[in-house]
């Protein structure tokens, strides 16, 4: 990569962009007066329905973490026609992807590539990263129709969340029983044999303080045609590539108790993990079946506004089911037939969290976590001996048991008016990775329309039990450690326009690397980055631009593969006649270094690309809403990087999807 690429190609545009930021400094103050004016226009019923910032438990937790947080609202999810979690993340700054159009997709945040195990994904605060690998699964198994908002916390957050919260956290918040009460049904149909059905029902009896919500989704798709030449001749003309998803979740409220479950079941082809053309792998009949179940009960004990105690019990299960066909080979000299995999894992946990406010200047949040984890030591496998016959379900694998004790404490102290100091520390003690201390400290300055943060944060990703015994073994393995320095500034330039900039410097030390036949803590990653955001919201129009510059390097080997230095996202939504909404958005990603040279181009990088998407919504016929989503509007041919046998991954061409929603609301 040309070191001056950024300077040559973007410095003038960036200067112009910054100039525009300062020129459009025109409209009045975002003052308390205007808030009161808005509230005074509401009646008591309307006031009762407003969700307040600090009274919400979830928002309160995020607000206490001094970090850059970006939110994708339900409104944005719908008007932009997002079909997957990755679709939504692609439009905010800092994200890059390796979409293999297969059983998983990989998401990289702030220049750190991984197998999805440097980002923690939570649904309503419950971790849903796969227990065995520590990575979350990408794909279509998140029911976005029931998502109230997605909060992305950038940078390390291990002080609150422990292992894997390294590059950031994605917290998916679903609707509560009191939100948009009633029933909603959504139908989806479109290209590549995509079809889906989702529903949700919510009911709250306020006087009894009881309520429940229930939602479900079934979706299936053939993803995209990668057969023959469409897929770079990696697979045959008859290759199979499907994904079937089921998602169910429920919440039950009773006074200060809350219980819930999140169930996700995903079956997909594993064809794209291997090449079938020119190899003995077959590209029909594979089926990767993973099932997640998370259940929880919370109780909040609150005697005054000064303190509360939250108690949680939770159970998590992540199973690669025993009907999984991981791959099929027809190698007469070696493996023949279908290969079955089975990998059950579960975890039981308790968490006690308290929040205490001393006067008006000091607030402390602390917690104790106890977890018991039962992990498969590896995949249990079975072999059919013929590519035409299913294998028997594999036997139960050997289990590894792990106990974890974590204690965390974080305080917020108002040093002087407008300036808040936050400091926190977490202690983890695990059976297999031992003791880890994780500190953080940050200053947050807020005055009128300006907000500034100066942050130092750390995080870790713990090795898994089998990493210590892999090959000849290494009992001295330590967690990978991230250190991050960040300056984040944001300013409301007017009622409608918000600008922000984040400048950060990250380092990950002791990255696990295969050395001879065992793992060692070896590589070091250094990342410098800048994110610039501009958001505009008015009654009928919204628009955004965000730009990210990333310089990510391994200390010993230079530029990090799969990370582009420049990315840009632009989009706008315009409301017409009160019933139509048009959204057009684009993602630009600079060229990326690939793990290997691509035979057809002779280059060791995948090209930069612009891809456009558009969504037209009609919301004006009784309780029905119609939506036409066009992904890859101009049918651009573009590729993602690969660390697998296919040298690069072709991305989906133009796809048309029709969504119809029917809603019956109470009130």
């Amino acid at each position: 990569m040309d070191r001056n690429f950024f300077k040559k190609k973007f410095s003038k545009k960036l200067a112009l962009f910054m100039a525009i930021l300062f020129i459009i400094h025109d409209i009045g103050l975002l003052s308390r007066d205007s808030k009161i004016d808005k509230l005074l226009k509401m009646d008591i019923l309307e006031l009762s329905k407003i969700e307040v910032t600090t009274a919400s438990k979830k928002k309160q937790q995020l607000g206490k973490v001094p970090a850059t947080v970006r939110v994708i609202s339900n409104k944005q999810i719908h008007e932009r026609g997002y079909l997957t979690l990755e679709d939504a993340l692609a439009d905010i700054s800092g994200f890059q992807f390796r979409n293999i159009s297969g059983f998983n997709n990989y998401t990289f945040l702030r220049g750190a590539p991984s197998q999805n195990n440097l980002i923690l994904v939570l649904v309503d605060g419950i971790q849903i990263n796969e227990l065995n690998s520590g990575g979350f699964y990408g794909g279509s198994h998140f029911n976005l129709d029931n998502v109230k908002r997605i909060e992305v916390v950038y940078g390390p957050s291990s002080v609150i969340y422990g292992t894997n919260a390294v590059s950031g956290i994605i917290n998916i918040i679903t609707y509560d029983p009191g939100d948009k009460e009633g029933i909603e049904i959504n139908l989806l149909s479109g290209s590549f044999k995509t079809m889906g059905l989702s529903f949700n029902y919510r009911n709250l009896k306020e006087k009894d303080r009881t309520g429940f919500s229930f939602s479900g989704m079934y979706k299936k798709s053939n993803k995209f045609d990668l057969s023959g030449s469409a897929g770079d001749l990696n697979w045959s003309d008859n290759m199979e590539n499907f994904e079937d998803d089921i998602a169910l979740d429920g919440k039950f409220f009773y006074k200060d108790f809350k219980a819930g479950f999140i169930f996700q079941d995903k079956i997909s082809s594993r064809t794209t993990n291997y090449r079938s053309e020119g190899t003995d792998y077959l590209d029909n009949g594979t089926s990767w079946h993973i099932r997640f179940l998370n259940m929880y009960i919370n109780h909040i004990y609150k005697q005054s506004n000064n303190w509360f105690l939250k108690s949680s019990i939770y159970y998590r299960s992540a199973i690669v089911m025993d009907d999984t066909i991981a791959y099929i080979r027809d190698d007469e000299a070696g493996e023949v037939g279908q290969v079955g995999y089975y990998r059950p894992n579960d975890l039981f946990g308790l968490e006690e969290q308290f929040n205490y406010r001393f006067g008006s200047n000091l607030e402390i949040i602390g917690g104790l976590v106890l977890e018991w984890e039962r992990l498969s030591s590896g995949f249990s496998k079975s072999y059919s001996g013929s590519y035409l016959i299913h294998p028997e379900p594999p036997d139960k694998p050997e289990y590894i048991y792990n106990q974890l004790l974590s204690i965390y404490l974080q305080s917020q102290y108002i040093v002087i008016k407008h300036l808040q100091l936050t400091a926190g520390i977490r202690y983890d003690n695990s059976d297999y990775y031992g003791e880890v201390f994780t500190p953080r400290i940050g200053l947050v300055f807020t005055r009128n329309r300006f907000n500034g943060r100066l942050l130092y944060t750390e995080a870790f990703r713990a090795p898994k039990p089998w990493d210590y015994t892999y090959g000849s073994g290494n009992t001295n393995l330590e967690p990978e450690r991230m250190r991050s320095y960040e300056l984040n500034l944001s300013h409301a330039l007017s009622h409608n326009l918000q600008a922000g900039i984040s400048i950060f410097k990250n380092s990950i030390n002791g990255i696990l690397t295969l050395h001879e036949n065992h793992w060692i803590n070896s590589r070091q990653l250094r990342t410098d980055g800048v994110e610039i955001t501009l958001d505009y919201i008015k009654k009928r129009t919204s628009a955004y631009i965000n730009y990210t510059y990333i310089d990510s390097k391994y200390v010993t080997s230079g530029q990090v593969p799969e990370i582009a230095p420049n990315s840009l996202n632009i989009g706008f939504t315009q409301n017409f006649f009160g019933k139509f909404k048009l959204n057009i958005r684009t993602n630009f990603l600079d060229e990326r270094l690939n793990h290997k040279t691509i035979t057809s181009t002779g280059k060791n990088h995948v090209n930069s690309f612009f891809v456009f998407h558009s969504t037209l919504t009609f919301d004006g016929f009784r309780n029905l809403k119609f939506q036409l989503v066009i992904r890859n509007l101009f049918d651009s041919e573009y590729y993602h990087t690969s660390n697998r046998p296919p040298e690069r991954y072709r991305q989906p061409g133009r796809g048309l999807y029709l969504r119809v929603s029917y809603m019956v609301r109470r009130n």
Partner: protein
Amino acid sequence: MFIRSTGIVLISFFLLFTTMNAKDNSEKENFLPEDIKSVFIYNFTRFFDWPDEQSDQTFTITIFGKSKISKLLRVIAEKRKVKRKQIIIKNIFSIKELKSCNILFVSASASKHIKAILKKINEWPVLVIGEKKGLLRMGLGINFVDMDGRIRFEINKTNINRAGLKVSSQLLKLAVVVI
């Protein structure tokens, strides 16, 4: 070239739309609990009748203890009237300072004095509003509660009647608890 021209077109679009709707209002804002509570207090005045209220020249809201609500109520007092009367906002921090008023808001920090407050006002025609769990049964008329991130209110009809106030049945329907 394609990249550059497309980028310029999109930025132009963005700027066009930002200037097209300069007079619209912003759609989304974050409200704090005190924002909602202060407007609630103002709205409550429409649903109550005070004895001899005709003879009063002003409508007095007293805030007992430190609370951000007092600033917000002053903003409201500049903009609105209650029953065609000017709103007067008073802040007090001790029982000694407590004098007759139409509404008395007892902040969370001052709620430890609630027994003494109620003893002093006895049967004055005052609507007493609190914001701490459990206060409703101690003698308050209205108590704010936090329910799943929303501010709601409970009403003690017995205490309101004892103070000689009349409350509209419409307000009772909107309360989460009525005793």
